[in-house]
């Protein structure tokens, strides 16, 4: 006895436009994620590194001038 649930399975092709829409949407999502990562993680981390490096330079400068 054939399962009637199997007989009602559809066999339509997905329109190509759906693929284009999905890929366009996920590229946008990826851009948002990358921007969020840049602004929330990478940018603050760069600023902290820059400030640390500047402070370190100033310390070294002061040390050098004291030695002179």
């Amino acid at each position, binding site marked *: 006895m054939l399962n009637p649930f199997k007989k009602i399975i559809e066999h339509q092709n997905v329109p190509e436009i759906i*693929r284009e829409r999905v890929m366009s949407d996920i590229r946008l999502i990826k851009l948002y994620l990358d921007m969020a990562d840049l602004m929330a993680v990478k940018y603050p981390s760069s600023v902290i590194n820059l400030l640390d490096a500047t402070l370190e330079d100033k310390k070294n400068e002061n040390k050098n001038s004291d030695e002179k």
Partner: protein
Amino acid sequence: MEAPYKEDNLSDEQLIQKITETNNTYLFGLLYDRYSGIVFNKCIGFTSSYEVAQDLTQDIFVKLFVKLKSFKGESKFSTWLYAFSYNHCVNFVQRELKGDKKTVSITENIEDELTDEISDREIYELKAEKLKSALQMLNPNDRMMLLMKYQDDISIKEISAVTGLGESAVKMRLSRAKVNLVKFYNDIQ
């Protein structure tokens, strides 16, 4: 864009791992190509509308890109994706019903009258065309349970894993869904 990996031979699980590690859109496109047809046809089966199924398929794959990390490999990816897709369809149908001010209380009344268990044999004796109509009249949650069990051949254990329900709850829901289905089926002239 050229393929950065020899990914055509990758299993679903390997492909998903690479996508979640890199958010690579090319690799996600491969996953789309593997499953879009199945998901699209499930959406048509669930909603009986070609146009609605197009929108649902698009939404499901966009949501999938964001939620792919939540696939933990506890079941086959296809099983997980079917449940993911059905859940999206159920939510959509329920929102539509709310918007139309319709309710699905009719099935609740039927549930109160439950007495006999419907056997698989009785289910297999149903006529396909009438079955299709009866499924559309069912509560979307009942429809999802029946499609997973009888169309996708997902075991009770796997349905339990992907829905987060206990096995006894799954059995109970399936049993109710079958009774409701047969009731609607018999009401169709």
